[in-house]
């Protein structure tokens, strides 16, 4: 059991009207919730770290709720999601892996029945490191229009003894999606893939 010590929270919202093509009838919105927390394992090798995943659950829920609020308040508007972590340099990549379970749990919990695996990425880095958080459809990973990513970062985080945790949600497809593949309207929704 470790305390989750939050230094800083950041919420970023992007509203995309076009990218050189026709104006979107419904602008795409993407949001990221970022939190810089103290890394309780910084500076040393700790064999048993898995318990910290449970400690992170409440923070994950808080971040997922913040994203829903930032995107209009209705979980039914959310079509894509992703997650990621940047571990400060006194930590190890494995500390970032602690985010897989609580980050995914939190978004599924808030979104009800989301079936698809939550795409993720992680790295070790210094303050200002940028992370391209991958995004896929919440119910079917193969929906090609929803393959996306959002670049995030905080100028002064992660410090060396911190972990920057990220959750991302979107309200739809890429703004001018037109490269075919499985469509959101064709989802069977059985296996989380198609």
């Amino acid at each position, binding site marked *: 059991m470790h305390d989750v010590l939050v*230094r800083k929270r*950041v919420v970023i919202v992007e*509203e995309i009207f076009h990218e050189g093509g026709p104006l979107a009838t419904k602008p795409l919105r993407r949001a990221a919730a970022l939190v810089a927390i103290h890394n309780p394992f910084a500076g040393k090798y700790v064999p048993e770290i898995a318990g910290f995943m449970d400690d992170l659950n409440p923070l994950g829920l808080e971040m997922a709720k913040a994203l829903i609020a930032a995107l209009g308040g209705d979980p039914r508007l959310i079509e894509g999601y992703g997650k990621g972590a940047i571990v400060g340099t006194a930590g190890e990549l494995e500390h970032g892996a602690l985010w897989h379970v609580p980050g995914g749990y939190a978004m599924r919990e808030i979104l009800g029945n989301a079936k698809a695996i939550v795409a993720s990425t992680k790295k070790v880095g210094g303050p200002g490191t940028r992370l391209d958080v991958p995004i896929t459809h919440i119910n079917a990973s193969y929906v090609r229009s929803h393959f996306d990513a959002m670049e995030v970062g905080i100028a002064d985080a992660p410090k060396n003894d911190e972990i920057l945790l990220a959750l991302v949600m979107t309200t739809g497809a890429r703004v001018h999606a037109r490269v075919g593949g499985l469509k959101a309207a064709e989802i069977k929704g059985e296996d989380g893939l198609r």
Partner: protein
Amino acid sequence: MKAKIRKILTFVEETRTEMGKAVNPPTRRAAAAAVIENPFAGRYVEDLAELMGIGEELGALLTERAVAALGIPGASAESYGKAAAVGENGELEHAAAILHPKLGTPVRKALGKGAALIPSSKKRGGPGVALDIPLGHKDAAFVRSHFDGMEIRVNDAPRANEILVAIAVTDSGRPLARVGGLTKDQIKGEDGLR
């Protein structure tokens, strides 16, 4: 609307601790940014009035977004700042035309008062360039606790023919400010300086 907007972003930052010491209440700052087409990209145009009009429009829109992101009444905002990054086919003077002649009036209208100069910065750069928005107290530029800055960046902007325009608003000064100087409760608010 005069400005051709490709996307709008908001960023909210909340600092809860510094060096393990609680920041109570947490300091919060928000920035709203628009990515717009530069109507004068790639050529020298003498009369920049169109960009001045765009600045007026964005002053209202971005201040409203930033204040909404903080969830406070405009009059409760404590400090502010503005900045623009011009894509490679534009000139620095295009940023000046947006920021300086007409943008301030609607900002002050949205925030109640605003006797102080709105601190500003500008640059030319490519996509993902970091924009450091200077911050100062809105009613008295010499309030030392509110000298600050907020970094934002947008990974895909400004494109060559675009301008990234941002306004930052806070509900507080720096976390744990303690280097003396004029404090906010000493503001006379007559000349915008003290």
